[in-house]
């Protein structure tokens, strides 16, 4: 299917150049014409509503051309929860072009533009971002990103749900710099073991890394409450009422769920993205970006700390229409502008073309977002149980070089081989000790050795899946908690890992991770859009890649030494 297949069996003679072009990977990507009536259009559609708002008795009674009696539930929720009633009439009166310029103009502070944004309706926000080209959108992201220091998130999964692989790859991802790690399963029953692997591996790689396991709500919440995972992200919301209902939820059920996570001290953000509604055939004639802006405002109204957006699993849809990737950048801008922590996509297989994969990435990577990828595959894509990411382990060196070329911080760094081998090995050994103490099917020395040097799941000895699944069940039945794991790590000679893990668990008492864009530094200092608020105000301000961090990012796998050109810098 991925073979380079000719597009047509035409017998007309073509030039050699055409043959070469036909064979280029980009021609395996799909492109379609717009169909605005049905919502198959990125962000410029005559069928989107005109901005309007009207307040009566302290209540919004008209929103984007609809009166309250015509509201669907998205309108109601947004009108009642997201939009600032006191400021909206003034805010809406500000010309769109002026607001767009404020987003770009460094002399307007983030605080001002965010405050103005609190009074805008979805159609008005769309009207504003429609005026912006992709460079302006990037400038907007640079200013409105909530956290000052950009960060990144990795996927760590296994095609065989092998917990040792997940642990080793999590350790490597953590030491390479990812602030958050996410996993999911092929066989859902494996979840406890894989989630343990992710957490333990993460804490081996770098203390303070936050982990999550994407599952249905009940299990995900359970793992979180046991302290086996630290946050949740895959709580989907949609831009039309019909699709929201098809997903068996409403803004109220999701808002309730958001509070439920917070009540357990667990960090959580929603997920949405352009293209999902039209993909499901119920865009109600609205453009993809308009609907996504409704999602963003719904998320804001629910009071959730953040949002994963940037089309996510529907990236093939905006990716196929004109201006689609601009719209994807615009949705990240709007999420940031609405003062939400933004995990900005780049997390699903996007293109056959390496050039196109890179260009899709730059609008997030260059300005920096709270999490540039909401899932950089920390395993080879064939092991990626989220169906592949825009970037995977093969791209590590490319990413590091781009950071160095552009002097931008994409959250990663080059790490020497010996360090990587050491953390991989240690993660596997920690798992070996845990499994032994928990009476789970033993992890052999051979598996530890494999984990140290492996690339993909193919490089590991097969495990007895049946026994592992029984083990996974017993972990749940016995009520094993994160604290139990800490105790075992402590007494089996992994005291530093235990200490790291305990420090992550302590955060639940303080609730500090519930604030917008919160991550933990290696010293366990919560870094959020409060104590590390973005203060970009034009050239020379905001986050600048400099000092120690810049020195770190100058390192690559191969850099010729200036002092001795016969050698490479180590």
């Amino acid at each position, binding site marked *: *299917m991925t073979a380079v297949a000719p597009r047509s069996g035409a017998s007309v003679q073509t030039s050699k150049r055409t043959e070469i072009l036909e064979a280029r990977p980009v021609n395996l990507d*799909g*492109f*379609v014409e717009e169909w605005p009536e049905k919502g198959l259009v990125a962000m410029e559609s005559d069928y989107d509503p005109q901005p309007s708002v009207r307040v009566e008795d302290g209540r919004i009674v008209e929103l984007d051309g609809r009166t309250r009696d015509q509201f669907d539930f998205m309108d109601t929720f947004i009108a009642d929860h997201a939009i600032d009633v006191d400021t909206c009439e003034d805010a809406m009166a500000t010309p769109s072009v002026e607001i767009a310029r404020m987003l770009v103009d460094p002399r307007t502070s983030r605080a001002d533009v965010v405050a103005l944004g609190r009074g805008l309706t979805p159609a008005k926000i769309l009207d504003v971002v429609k005026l912006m080209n992709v460079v302006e959108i990037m400038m907007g992201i640079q200013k409105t990103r909530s956290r000052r220091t950009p960060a990144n998130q990795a996927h760590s999964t296994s095609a065989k749900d092998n917990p040792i692989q997940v642990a080793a790859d999590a350790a490597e991802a953590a030491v390479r710099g990812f602030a958050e790690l996410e996993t999911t399963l092929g066989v859902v029953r494996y979840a406890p073991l894989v989630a343990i692997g992710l957490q333990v591996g993460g804490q081996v790689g770098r203390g303070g890394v936050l982990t999550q396991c994407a599952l249905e709500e009940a299990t995900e919440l359970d793992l979180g409450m046991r302290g086996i995972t630290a946050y949740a992200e895959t709580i989907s919301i949609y831009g039309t009422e019909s699709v929201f209902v098809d997903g068996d939820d409403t803004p109220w059920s999701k808002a309730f769920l958001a509070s439920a996570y917070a009540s357990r001290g667990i960090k959580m953000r929603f997920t949405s993205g352009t293209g999902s509604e*039209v993909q499901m055939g119920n865009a109600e004639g609205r453009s993809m970006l308009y609907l996504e802006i409704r999602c963003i405002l719904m998320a804001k109204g629910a009071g959730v700390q953040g949002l994963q957006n940037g089309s996510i699993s529907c990236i093939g849809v905006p990716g*196929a229409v004109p201006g689609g990737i601009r719209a994807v950048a615009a949705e990240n801008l709007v999420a940031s502008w609405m003062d939400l922590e933004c995990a900005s996509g780049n997390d699903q*297989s996007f293109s056959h073309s390496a050039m196109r994969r890179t260009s899709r990435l730059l609008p997030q990577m260059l300005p920096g977002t709270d999490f540039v990828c909401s899932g950089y595959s920390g395993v080879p894509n064939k092991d990626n149980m989220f169906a592949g990411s825009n970037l995977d382990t093969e791209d590590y060196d490319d990413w590091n070089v781009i950071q160095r070329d552009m002097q931008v911080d994409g959250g990663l760094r080059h790490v020497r081989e010996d360090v990587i081998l050491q953390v991989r090995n240690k993660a596997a050994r920690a798992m070996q000790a845990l499994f032994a103490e928990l009476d789970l099917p033993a992890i052999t020395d051979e598996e530890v050795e494999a984990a140290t040097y492996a690339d993909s799941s193919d490089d590991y000895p097969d495990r007895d899946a049946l026994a592992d699944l029984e083990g996974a069940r017993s972990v749940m039945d016995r009520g094993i908690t994160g604290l139990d794991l800490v105790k075992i790590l402590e007494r089996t000679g992994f005291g530093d890992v235990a200490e790291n893990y305990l420090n992550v668990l302590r955060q639940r008492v303080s609730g500090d991770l519930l604030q917008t864009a919160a991550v933990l530094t290696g010293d366990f200092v919560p870094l959020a859009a409060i104590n590390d608020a973005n203060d970009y105000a034009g050239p020379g301000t905001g986050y600048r890649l400099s000092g120690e961090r810049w020195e770190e990012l100058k390192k690559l796998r191969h850099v010729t030494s200036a002092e001795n050109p016969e050698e490479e810098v180590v």
Partner: protein
Amino acid sequence: MTAPGAVSTESVRTLSLREIGPAERGTKPDEVVIALSPAFGDPFTKTIVDVPHAEVIRQLLAGIEERGGSARVIKVYKTADLAAIAHFGAKISGSGIAVGVLSRGTTVLHQRDLARLSNLELFPQAPLLDAEVFRMIGANAAQYAQGQSPKPVPTRNDQMARPRWQAKAALLHLKEFDCIDHSRNAVEVEPVITKVD
């Protein structure tokens, strides 16, 4: 998978669906109902990867016939939701087994007693379904209808289907939605396959 055009090396067959009456509950205990989506056969004529609808039907029927089963074909107009189409088919199938097919090729094997969103076998990636797979789906449907336990049709997977086909699939889905006719009940049809040399 079969590249577009690969099936057209043989002679071309066309499909017309001749309406023979309302879709009613069947009585044959081993029959399979093939339930087609609103745009199947008309106005669409081929799947997302250009497998002619005539070939889809012919291979499904051949798979059922080879396994000694019998089949009825129905066309649903009120919904373009695959699960709903297949589940409706299963409910009126004498055996309780139905194959649901969307115009773009997405296919599901359903059974009457299952929840609508569940299934016996699901083939969600339409771009990976070729004539051979449709034959196997037909054969399995007949075996389920006979109370046997066939080996599931091997599923194919391709992570790069998203960039290539996701948008076209959405487009086809929208077109299919456009063909929904809420006023029209499902009908039983006789597939007439004509060979064009």
